[in-house]
């Protein structure tokens, strides 16, 4: 998982706007697939990630082509999701779901995180 974390961390920055290369995806179906295909196991139900397993996907601005390229042939520890397992349309739906995730509350607004 550490390899994946590094790669996605390098891609991190700000949320990218959809480009012409981004197919239309269904975030509701993407949410269902995110659970059904067990993405949440490593990345959390809210895409919050975990130091122990997988990086944060919420507010992670990886582009769609790189997203698809990574899930098809991950360079790190993540299992490969070929088109036999996740179709291109399903990948687009998953991407749309990740893009739809809301930003977290500001840290300063959470008293428990100031301890």
């Amino acid at each position, binding site marked *: 998982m550490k390899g994946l974390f590094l790669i996605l961390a390098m891609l991190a920055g700000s949320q990218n706007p959809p480009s012409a290369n981004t197919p239309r995806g269904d975030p509701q179906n993407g949410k269902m697939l995110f659970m059904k*295909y*067990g993405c949440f196991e490593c990345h959390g139900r809210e895409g919050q990630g975990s130091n122990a397993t997988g990086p944060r996907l919420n507010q992670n601005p990886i582009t769609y082509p790189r997203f698809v390229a990574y899930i098809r042939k991950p360079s790190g520890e993540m299992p490969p999701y070929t088109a036999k*397992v996740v179709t291109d349309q399903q990948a687009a739906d998953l991407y749309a779901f990740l893009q739809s995730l809301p930003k*977290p*509350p500001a840290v300063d607004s959470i008293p428990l*995180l100031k301890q």
Partner: protein
Amino acid sequence: MAKSRRFSAGRRKFLKGAAVAGAATLATPGKPAVAAPTRRVTTPLQDPRAETGTPPEVEVLTADHCGSDFMVDVIKSLDIEYFCANPGSSFRALHESIVNYGGNQKPEFITCCHEESSVAMAHAYSKIEGKPIGVMAHGTVGLQHAAMAIYNAYCDRVPMFIVVGNSLDATQRRPGVEWEHSVQDAASMVRDFVKWDDTPISLGHFAESAARAYKIAMTPPMEPVLLVADSDLQERPLSEKEKLRVQKVTRTSPPQGDSGAVAEAAKLLVAAQNPVIIADRAARTPAGMKYLIELAETLQAPVLDQGGRMNFPSRHRLNLSGRGRPLIAEADVILGLELTDFWGTVNAYRDQLERTSRRITKPGTKLISITAGDLYIKANYQDFERYPEIDLAMAADAEATLPALIEAVKKLITPDRKSAFQARGAKLAAAHEAAVEQARKEAAYGWDASPISTARMSAELWAQIKNEDWSLVSNGASGWPQRLWNFDKYYQQIGGSGGAGVGYGAPASVGGALANRKYGRLSVSIQNDGDLMYAPGVLWTAAHHRIPLLSVMHNNRAYHQEVMHLQRMGNRHNRGIDRAYIGTTIEDPNIDYAKLAQSMGWFAEGPITDPKDLGPAIKRALAAVKHGEPALVDVVSQPR
């Protein structure tokens, strides 16, 4: 410490003598003791031998003292505070001697519902207290139950004093079960993962072997030891005729690194531009943590705490445990202190169809290792991990070697180096602050989610305990406590199971809490659901023995590590992963852990699914713990 008592051994000789004397009095060889009846009788209600054998006033049926009384004397000399055990007939005499002859104090008998729980309790107790307690078990079925937990303790380098009962003399065994519970070589089953064992054949032998076992267990690398207490040895009557002596226990000084190697290590560390200190089981005692702080501050070097023990304060400005990979990649000298896996620390590994690895350090990076593990490696079980190519290896105890290393380093520091160290330290402190801030930002993701995030769960728990004298007697939840809490005392973190044998967590937390109880510390645990289901009877043990413990369930309703392995295999074979839940989840029905705990005498609440309810629930549970009760809050949580 050495004591002697005037006991004589030899139940068989004693009883045989009594029987012979009785026979001599009442019978003539070749003739019945009583004339045959002259009239016909019906089937007797009693065994006729009761009428014709040794008269009750001659047969000896009691003895004021027995061998196990002397064993208790021996055990008391070892200052063993508790014996954890599920009762068993093969050590019935020792059990009875502990509770009656020994007054059930040092050792006190702790009633366990499973031998795996007994061992895991002793395991965690030792890591808090720095010395072993005892475990008793049948030499057969009990030891079979205990074996996995003993392996955990072995991998985790933890001392433990195990006594197993057995009946060696086949002519003395009771018919039936005692035969199933007897074995030629009881210790053989666990010999691969205990440091030493013996089967004493006399009480003097038991005393000497007990002292030897304790000494061996407490010499780094510390490990479990095992003695077989033969049932005849335990039960044979003792008189005041024979001297039995309790041996003085010798404590061996832990092995220090060779002075030349220490000097060479100091030279490398002082000259390094980017030294990194990595600690796993480095601190055996609070002093170990103090030494590590001194070394890091002297060098202004970052510390990566792998968490096998409480090695380094979590909020120390040189703690950069969360930035391990980049620091290792930049390092020119790496000092590894009691690392379980040095190879895995300096290599990246990829678990794909073709397993691959690559070194992540720069070419020429010097690796220094100090570990007592080099003094003791066995062949069968593979806990020694892959062979690391170390440049300077000291087969020595890290904690015992640190003072000499610190002095050697100090002697080599020039004003120029000191200036460079200070500049390095300032950069590291800034990196530490950035890591702390990053952890807080990351914790905000999924903050209001249900199931509750592991970050939120950790933060809510920290809010309730931060002003107490607390001790985390379990692993954390995905490392969040280590990222969010202020760990600065040795007993606040005890590391993991060692062998990754599931089922360790719940009994270990109770054992840790048992050790903390006399200090009035607040013991807290984050309890995994799958782990608790191995042997939940330990909840009863905690309630029965009034062991206060605040347990917050990390109830993600699955064996998530295994879910991910199933996902990996499903994807690798292009079969998808939507059936990875089969055999890996703990749902349908969901387990009500609050009811489970309540049924065994705990205060308990839950399941908690709304994060807003969590803080108040922990607060109520904490109030119960402060009254001396164990308390559990069942939290339905995110996977990781």
